[in-house]
């Protein structure tokens, strides 16, 4: 097999890089071991939520306070802006308008009734503009202040008034009582309620995915709306789980909102994330339209080299390891949680595709962290790169001329603790797109 550029990984960094390179005219193959973070995350763009343990209100400005070597410093603020702007245009063109900007962080309501700090959030999660009770498809939520960013400010953009937290009968992944209780403890007048589902094909088993697919159908929405409106009677804002449509962009949300006659706010749920699946579907459609090939389920396991260049990527096949020849290799495989880096039992860390040097820690006891998935030293382990995002050795020299690393695989940042996952993904994708777009296909 043969490709011009092979992108390994299909999370936020791999998908954005592949799309941008294909838009720039490169012929791209995406190799992925499976679906990635899109399906787990909240469908939002986190750029920078915390620095040094403290909350961040202005993400672009707060980049200055990040430690040396952070991916944002390597690519520069212009690349951050480029990445986020590109994403906003891409998502809007796919019918998935996102609200927000790099000047101020916003808050996204979760199924637990908490607020997570993010930068861009999907329009259905943004809430109505302040001071209007009318639903609008072009909502632009005002930024949240420090209070709301610390889970005290209420529903984004609508901290005042009565809030109904409504789930759909039989849907097991959203508890309106839990969500409403947390909101009440934060001073919001929130009441839990349940709306009946119209007759449909899934009485026994369904997850957010089946429900979201059903809500894609206009007829189903018309049958759903009266019950939802009754459950939310008297409320000025209606919080629902993020299940309002899967393959029709944000149109099912806007339509249902108009039918119900009150602003609907989607709360981020546990995986599978419908807002993330919508984004994945948008990427997939765009990549296929651009002629990009992809292959899921067979991890890249090695590279072939000639001198300082990689000439082929080796991936598992059904019965043989296969080599795909390429001009450029982009690794978007993620950190330890994303399976880009393997944490071995002896305490060492291995980069899985090209065996790149990993910046981790010497002492195995440094594995110990106090909180699950937070400020854990393992989460910051990664591949150290130069300003062109090429992996480097201990002396800072590139170990290969045509490998570039993007996203969570990079050293010197902790996407979860910092709340920087999509921002780093998009900024490094922007940098690689700029670097490789200039290289003509050979």
């Amino acid at each position, binding site marked *: *097999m*043969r490709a011009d550029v092979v992108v390994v990984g299909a999370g936020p960094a791999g998908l954005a890089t592949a799309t941008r390179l294909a838009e720039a005219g490169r012929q791209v*193959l995406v190799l*992925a*071991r*499976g*679906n*990635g973070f899109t*399906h*787990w995350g909240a469908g939002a763009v986190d750029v920078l939520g915390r620095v040094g343990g403290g909350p961040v209100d202005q993400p672009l400005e707060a980049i200055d306070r990040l430690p040396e070597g952070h991916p944002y410093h390597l690519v520069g603020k212009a690349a951050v802006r480029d990445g986020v702007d590109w994403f906003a245009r891409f998502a809007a063109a796919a019918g998935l308008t996102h609200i927000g900007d790099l000047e101020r962080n916003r808050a996204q309501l979760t199924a637990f009734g908490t607020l997570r700090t993010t930068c861009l959030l999907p329009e259905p999660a943004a809430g109505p503009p302040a001071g209007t009770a009318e639903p609008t498809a072009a909502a632009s939520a005002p930024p949240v202040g420090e209070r709301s960013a610390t889970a005290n400010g209420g529903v984004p953009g609508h901290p005042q008034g009565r809030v109904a937290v409504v789930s759909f009968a039989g849907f097991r992944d959203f508890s309106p009582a839990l969500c409403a209780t947390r909101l009440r403890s934060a001073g919001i007048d929130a009441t839990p309620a349940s709306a009946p589902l119209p007759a449909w*094909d*899934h*009485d*026994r*088993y*369904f*997850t957010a*995915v*089946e429900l979201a*697919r059903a809500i894609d159908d206009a007829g189903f929405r018309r049958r759903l709306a009266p019950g939802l409106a009754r459950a939310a009677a008297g409320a000025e804002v209606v919080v629902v789980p993020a299940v309002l449509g899967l393959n029709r962009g944000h149109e099912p949300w806007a339509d249902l909102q108009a039918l119900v006659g009150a602003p609907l706010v989607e709360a981020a749920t546990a*995986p*599978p994330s419908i807002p993330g*699946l919508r984004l994945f579907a948008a990427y997939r459609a765009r990549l*296929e339209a651009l002629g990009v*090939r*992809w*292959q*899921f*389920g*067979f*991890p890249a396991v090695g590279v072939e080299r000639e001198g300082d260049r990689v000439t082929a990527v080796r*991936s*598992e*096949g*059904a*019965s*043989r390891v*296969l080599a795909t*020849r390429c001009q450029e290799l982009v690794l978007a495989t993620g950190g330890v949680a*994303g*399976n880009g880096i393997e944490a071995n039992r002896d305490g060492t860390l291995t980069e899985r595709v090209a065996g790149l040097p990993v910046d981790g820690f010497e002492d195995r006891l440094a594995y110990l962290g106090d909180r699950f998935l937070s400020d854990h030293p393992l989460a910051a382990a990664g591949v150290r790169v130069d300003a062109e995002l090429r992996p480097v050795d201990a002396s800072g020299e590139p170990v290969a001329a045509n490998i570039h690393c993007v996203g969570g695989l990079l050293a010197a940042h902790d996407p979860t603790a910092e709340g920087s996952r999509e921002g780093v993904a998009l900024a490094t994708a922007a940098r690689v797109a700029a670097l490789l777009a200039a290289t003509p296909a050979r």
Partner: protein
Amino acid sequence: MLHVEQTADRCIKCNICNTVCPVSAVTDLFPGPKYEGPQGQRFRAGIDTGESPDHSIDYCSACGLCTQACPEGVMVAEINQVARSRLVAERGGLNLRDQVISRPSLMGAMARPVAPIANAVMATRPVRVLVEKTIKVHRGAAMPKFSAMTLRSWARSHRPPAGTTRTVAYFHGCAAQEFEPEVGAAVVRVLERNGARVTFPKQGCCGLPLVSNGDFDAGRSYASRLVRRLRGSADDPGVIVASSTSCGMTLKSKYRELLGLDDADTRAVSQAVYDICEYLVGLDDDGELNRSLAPIQARALYHPPCQLMAHGVGLPALDLMALVPGLEIERSRAGCCGTAGTYGVKQEKYQIAMDVGRTLFDQVTESKPDFIICDSETCRWHIARATGLPVYHPVQVLDRAYATA
């Protein structure tokens, strides 16, 4: 390497597999790969009785999309297939219907002497109703046409060109041998256009229908026999080309993963097997593919079978179709056409197969291609029956472009 069932330990319960399952999307009879696979696995581990905890496992179509979507390496579909085989064993083996549809070579050989009559009879509604009532093969399901001439008898009268530069063995399987010798003939001619001498090693059914219906013991005896017969070709010529996507997949990986055959002979055969399009793209990579293809002015929709994805070779047919001047290709948006081998012919599963295929059928209705291209025979039959359009193997398209060049 972990045993299939041990991969359940890697599950992080993220539900990604459930998001791609085409079956649970259309029916409540199957709750989704996660619940059946990694979650159900602990109840099958033999701690209590080891009996199957949930018989809805039988509604898994084994399309394999869940395994490919899993980011953690859980072999979800394979776990479910192993579980189904245990369920079948608990029930005392396959029912009559599943025994019959699991032996395509036997069916083909029995009908061959009376093929035209058998086809005419099978095309009548009263007979299909009777077949549905007696052995529960749905009256609407696509049936292959029996062929009076086998591929091997065609090959005996076929005169290969002189001056070959390479040799490949052809594993034609049951479909090309008994039902679609025209596909097999196209494979042979296309290989010959590329300087290959084609050999026809003694072979037989790979056992996939038995395996996917859950009779692993019978499948294993088919597998061992086929490995013995193909073993020599794995050394010489060293390349065994397969034109049936699912049988090729079975030879490459399912003997090892599902039947536990991991001996040196099985490995040698597995590693020598190439999907026909994979092989041709390999020739092209080395600059050795004959690219003198005549234009075909047409619009076609390409549907990659779910079981092609399990080869891990990408979509080689798309590369080949791109070489045919004038041919405009649209990609299928569907992950699976629904039939997944013999699944869609069963009375109780036919409607599920049609509902799964709706994504593809609707796309066809919308874009109105001249014809459809698909690598796998059971998919071709199912799609042709559902859409009324001709459905070709990619090699048949190449064969035509070569013939007029």
